[in-house]
């Protein structure tokens, strides 16, 4: 880490980085607890996830305030500026991640009242594991400033999409087979969508990490899901380009 003449400046920068890492840990825990609450039909855990979301919001505001203060008082340039801006961007991505996890937990509360649907919650769990691996990898890349890891996460974005598409079809089959499951299946569908969005936020964070380290945007072709599935109207991928 480069040295600053004013020691307090370096301390403040470190503090922002540390806060982002802590927030990342919290978001990670929220996502994996939300998935666990679905898989184990654990009502108490789901409630805890919903309650803890406030903490993430507070952390995000705190990081933003600190970053703005640092920009105003120290006028950071070059890598310091990128670090500060990156922290703000990541904080908002992590906050959204937390919101989505909260939403999954809320739906878990509703699902817990219905009959258990083992095979479907298994699929959600599997997709959730994949998404939380990506989140963990990208946060590891951030804390260790490892470019390779961030790029690897960025490049494997299509894995989550594949899982989402498979899940979508599976749920459709279930709903057509037994209309009584439509209510529960819709909740599961939204959960899958939320997980897919969390995966997108992990990709965003990977881009931020790349920018922070190199100062450049990620270039090159990100491996997209092959065309073919895209042109079907039932393919739910179309809504993912909202940012």
């Amino acid at each position: 880490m480069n040295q600053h003449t004013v020691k307090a400046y370096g301390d403040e920068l470190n503090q922002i980085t540390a806060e982002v890492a802590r927030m990342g840990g919290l978001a990670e825990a929220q996502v994996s607890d939300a998935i666990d609450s679905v898989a184990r039909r654990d009502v108490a855990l789901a409630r805890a996830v919903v309650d803890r979301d406030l903490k993430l919001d507070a952390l995000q505001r705190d990081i933003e305030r600190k970053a703005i203060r640092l920009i105003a008082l120290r006028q950071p340039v070059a890598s310091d500026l990128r670090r500060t801006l990156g922290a703000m961007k990541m904080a908002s991505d992590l906050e959204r991640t937390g919101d989505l996890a909260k939403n999954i937990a809320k739906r878990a509360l509703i699902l817990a009242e219905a009959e258990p649907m083992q095979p479907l919650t298994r699929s959600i769990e599997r997709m959730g594991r994949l998404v939380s691996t990506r989140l963990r990898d990208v946060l590891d890349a951030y804390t260790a400033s490892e470019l390779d890891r961030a790029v690897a996460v960025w490049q494997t974005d299509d894995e989550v999409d594949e899982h989402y598409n498979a899940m979508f079809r599976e749920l459709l089959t279930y709903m057509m087979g037994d209309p009584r499951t439509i209510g529960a299946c819709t909740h599961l569908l939204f959960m899958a969508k939320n997980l897919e969005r969390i995966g997108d936020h992990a990709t965003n964070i990977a881009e931020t990490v790349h920018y922070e380290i190199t100062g450049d945007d990620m270039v090159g072709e990100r491996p997209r899901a092959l065309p073919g599935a895209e042109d079907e109207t039932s393919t739910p991928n179309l809504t993912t380009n909202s940012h």
Partner: protein
Amino acid sequence: MPYESSPSPVAPISTSRFWTVGISIAIALVVMVGLAFIHPEIANWLIGGAVVVAASAWILNVQSPSVATLPETSGAPIERSADPMTAELLDRVFEALDDPVLIISGGEPDDIAGRRVVMANKAARDLLRIQSQGALLVQVIREPGVLEAVDEALFGGVSRTTDYATGGQRDRRWRAWTRPLGGGEGKGQGSLALVILRDETDARRTEMMRVDFLANASHELRTPLASLSGFIETLKGHARDDVAARDRFLDIMSAQADRMGRLVADLLSLSRIELNEHIPPSGRVDLDRAASDVVDAVSVLTQEKQINVVVDQGEARASISGDRDEILQVVQNLLDNAVKYSAKGGTVEISVRSDLSFDEAWASRMPGATRLPLVTPDRAVGVLYAAVTVRDHGPGMAREHLPRLTERFYRVEGQKSGERQGTGLGLAIVKHIINRHQGGLVVESAPGLGAAFTAWFPMVVERRDVRTTA
């Protein structure tokens, strides 16, 4: 790695002493000059006195810091420094401990960047990939529960144990012990906490496995069992004297019993592999030899179906670290599938490549097909991989089936795996073996184009030794 002895307790004290010396000399001089004006007759005496006062003050104050601060700076380690052997031995013991151990320093309670890793033993450095001493705690452990427990140990003096899981494909369960170590009195500056991590994955896993095994086994065994008991009933009843029907029924029953046997064998091997999933394999296998061994082993089956197996091996020996039986099982299962889904008289290609980088290993081998990694290992620096690809020209699979292939009992709809029915566990077993070997698995397929499965494993590092001994 011993504590970095901080110079901070010494520095402010010596500057303050400097001031006391200066001020006392100044006061003495002012008083004496004043007296000399009032009583000029004793001026000579006073000058002599001033010199004596100044000199004594100087001597007293300059010597005292070294005497006063010595016990302060070396309070705790004083008995260790008396015996450097013991200190060094303790350091070595700390390094050699199998469980990751960390010592965290406190800083201010509300400053998260104040928690730093003061010491970490080798296990901790490897696990948490700590690069430098004094790394921020949140950069190595992000788990909120553990961070809270560390804070309680630092500022509340409370010991705790926290369970947590690192998410991801290779889900691991950890238990963290946090203990206060005290240290600095008063303000949190020097307070320390001890964190010990222990891997509890295996204990939990065994428990989970039993539950899963029972659920899967009972579900999958029910179908063949129902058909068996149905036929037995028929044979006892009106088919008792019908010789032709009896023979046909007995054939079906024996096929069902075979299926149940295979299923039980697969379930058992799956649960055995899962139990070992977190134990790194110790042996050494030549992937190219393993491939040709398996091709020989299935030759009966391939001749029966008139399938042509084309083996393509590179020049170099592909030595990987792994369990021979398990690697054979991976190749066997992949080849079994390829043969199963090939039409009569078709071709199956099996190729082995070595000395591949991470990116080469999981690169595409079948242009135009959908490609999906089913198992992706953690990226390691400087590791080369050997890969085995099994390619068939069967019906292929649509993209939506690919993510679920390694799921237990998952079967692609509308496909028949021939007379020799599969158990639906083959690829699940492959996945677990590859996970254990820190390798990867990629599937590429498109309807009508067939499928290619590539399994890749890290190679043994000292390749030259192997070549001479092999």
